[in-house]
């Protein structure tokens, strides 16, 4: 365990999240059990007030988690200077067995909390508060991944060993890797690229058809294959090195921090796609978020496609 100031900051904020998370969990539990929109009992009255507290807590956690996700990646990036063998955040993340799961959990929770907030706003816009009960039942469920994430993060920093030699992204994201990541390289990379563009096209189609289930499905698949395609196909063009495949180095200064832009677009696009579709499934409201989703997704596809195209125009060959 090493207590750099960054780690201490993350751990302190984790403690706060845990504290508030536990409060929100118990209140949500009560709310999910006893909420009754038609009652005007004192119990209902106090539940109403508590529901504001839970919403405030969740907003607080979410608003901080967004920048903290970036800060976490940044911290790992910075630690890679100290840890032998690590060249970027991926080496640090993977230096602990569950590091990748932690990152994925963080991402997953952002989607969950974001969706919860979407539902919350839909709920508050309506006089009948139709989703309040659902909202709190959902939060009871969502708080588990939150606690798992906090636990994993604490464990991650505790077991992070600075003197241990870790492997760099060059070996992690290659066919030689011992982990399941190597499986990605078994198949021809063009298959992944095809799936990536295919699901993008499907999401456009779904938007045109206004078919919510399809929007949900295509966006989820688009997210997964966008990341895979980024690792196996697009990233070498960003680095202009045929063997350098890494989803983390994009975030470094050498590549003008382009990763932050790309990931923001991708995550926003798929979040609005999935969240909006989910919301319209539940509430039968008209789709307001799909347009945003299509906009962000398209921008992502355009930018990431430009890398190989520009490379080809300049050098006349594919990598």
């Amino acid at each position, binding site marked *: 365990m090493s207590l750099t100031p960054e780690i201490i900051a993350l751990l302190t904020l984790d403690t706060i999240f845990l504290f508030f998370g536990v409060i929100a969990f118990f209140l949500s539990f009560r709310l999910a059990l006893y909420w009754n929109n038609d009652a005007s009992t004192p119990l209902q009255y106090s539940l109403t007030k508590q529901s504001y507290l839970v919403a405030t807590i969740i907003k607080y956690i979410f608003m901080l988690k967004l920048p*903290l996700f970036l800060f976490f990646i940044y911290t790992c990036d910075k630690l890679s200077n*100290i840890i032998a063998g690590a060249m970027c955040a991926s080496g640090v993340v993977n230096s602990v067995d569950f590091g990748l799961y932690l990152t994925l959990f963080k991402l997953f929770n952002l989607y969950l909390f974001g969706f919860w907030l979407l539902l919350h706003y839909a709920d508050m816009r309506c006089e009948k508060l139709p989703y309040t009960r659902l909202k709190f039942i959902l939060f009871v469920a969502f708080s588990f991944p939150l606690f798992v994430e906090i636990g994993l993060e604490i464990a991650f920093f505790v077991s992070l060993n600075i003197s241990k030699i870790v492997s760099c992204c060059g070996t992690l994201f290659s066919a030689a890797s011992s982990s399941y990541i190597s499986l990605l390289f078994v198949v021809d990379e063009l298959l992944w690229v095809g799936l990536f563009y295919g699901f993008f096209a499907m999401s456009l189609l779904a938007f045109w058809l206004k078919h919510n289930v399809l929007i949900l499905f295509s966006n989820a698949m688009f997210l997964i294959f966008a990341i895979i395609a980024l690792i196996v196909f697009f990233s070498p063009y960003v680095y202009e090195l045929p063997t350098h495949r890494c989803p983390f180095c994009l975030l470094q200064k050498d590549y003008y921090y382009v990763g932050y832009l790309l990931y923001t677009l991708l995550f926003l696009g798929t979040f609005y796609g999935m969240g909006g579709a989910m919301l319209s499934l539940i509430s039968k409201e008209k789709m307001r978020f799909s347009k945003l989703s299509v906009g962000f997704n398209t921008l992502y596809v355009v930018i990431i496609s430009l890398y190989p195209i520009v490379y080809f125009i300049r050098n006349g060959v594919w990598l």
Partner: protein
Amino acid sequence: MFFKPNFLLLDYAIRSLMRRFGKSFFIFFILSLLIFVLASVLMIADAIKLELNTTLKTLPQITLQRFIAGKQSDVPLERVEALLDIEGISAVTPRVWGYYYFKPAGVNFSIVGIDAYEEQYSATLSTLTQRFDIKLLEKENGMIIGEGVQKILSENYYTEFFNFITSEGKWQRVHIAGVFHSDLALESNDLIILPKKLAYAIFGMDKSKATDIIVKVANVKEIPTIVQKINERYPDMRAITQDDIRVSYQNIFDYKSGFFLALFSICAFAFFIIIYDKTSGLSSEEKKEIGILKAIGWSSDDILKEKFYESFTLSLSAFFVGITCSLFYVYALQASFLRNLFMGYSALKPSFALPFSVDVSMLILLFLLSVPIYIAATLIPAWRASTLDADEVMR
């Protein structure tokens, strides 16, 4: 979902902070103080780290020390030639150096013996040898001293020369041939440079030996293999590489700032309990105000927003004030006092300027350690205030 700032509400929040000036100022002051201390410590640590790293780059790639029975002892000079046979080593320099304890002032001087015909192993030394005539030093028994040394010697009335007491108890008179200004100050302030011949005499060392040996390699990547080869040939030699020193410094610093931060967290925690206490106790006036606002059409959410604006402006301005003060303190005032925490107190050493090293990431870190935590402490009190019943407080 889409946040649109309400400037009128912000104005309202700021003025309600101003109205409770005593209370707000107390919190503002302590918060700024905490941020100031935290920022200063992190900045000093970073600046010293930076200074050390530049100094470390000038350090020898490999230093070889000989250990006999666990104690460091002098190295026979024959080994210098033998070491040159090892492939990859490009230069080997024996060093004669040590500390001289000057009793009247109670300080240690670092004495380094140099030879005009040898390649100098550090940048500092080679600039010095360019500026001063070393051969002349040898002829007239002279030495070059750092500014700190000069100051102490002149306090003891040695302005022209100095009498070293050798290990045999004899006096060795040495001229002060020159004084160098310490731009690369961390190491050189307490330095005395004199010919090797004199150094041997002062230390009473065997002339066929050296204090330690500096090895230069052609390719930095080969350092580990070369160290291994040296260890095989001379098991009594210990090799210290540049990297070893860097890592150990880094660890010391991280440890020190981590330790400090842990202490700091405890203070901060105590402080936030005070904040919680202060913000949760609403005066009857404030309660009445909230009641009125609700009666004329504010919702709980609006009250909560107002409270959020209050704590956000308060903590953000404390953040800026704290950062500004610590920038001033660390770089304009050179962090007098606090830097000793990291350097260890020494009469001669603390005279180098802290190099400027503030990056955005440190500001983000400081922000995360202050503003969100403060807002967290006011979250529940703000919620309590926002859910007050209008009719009950308006009676």
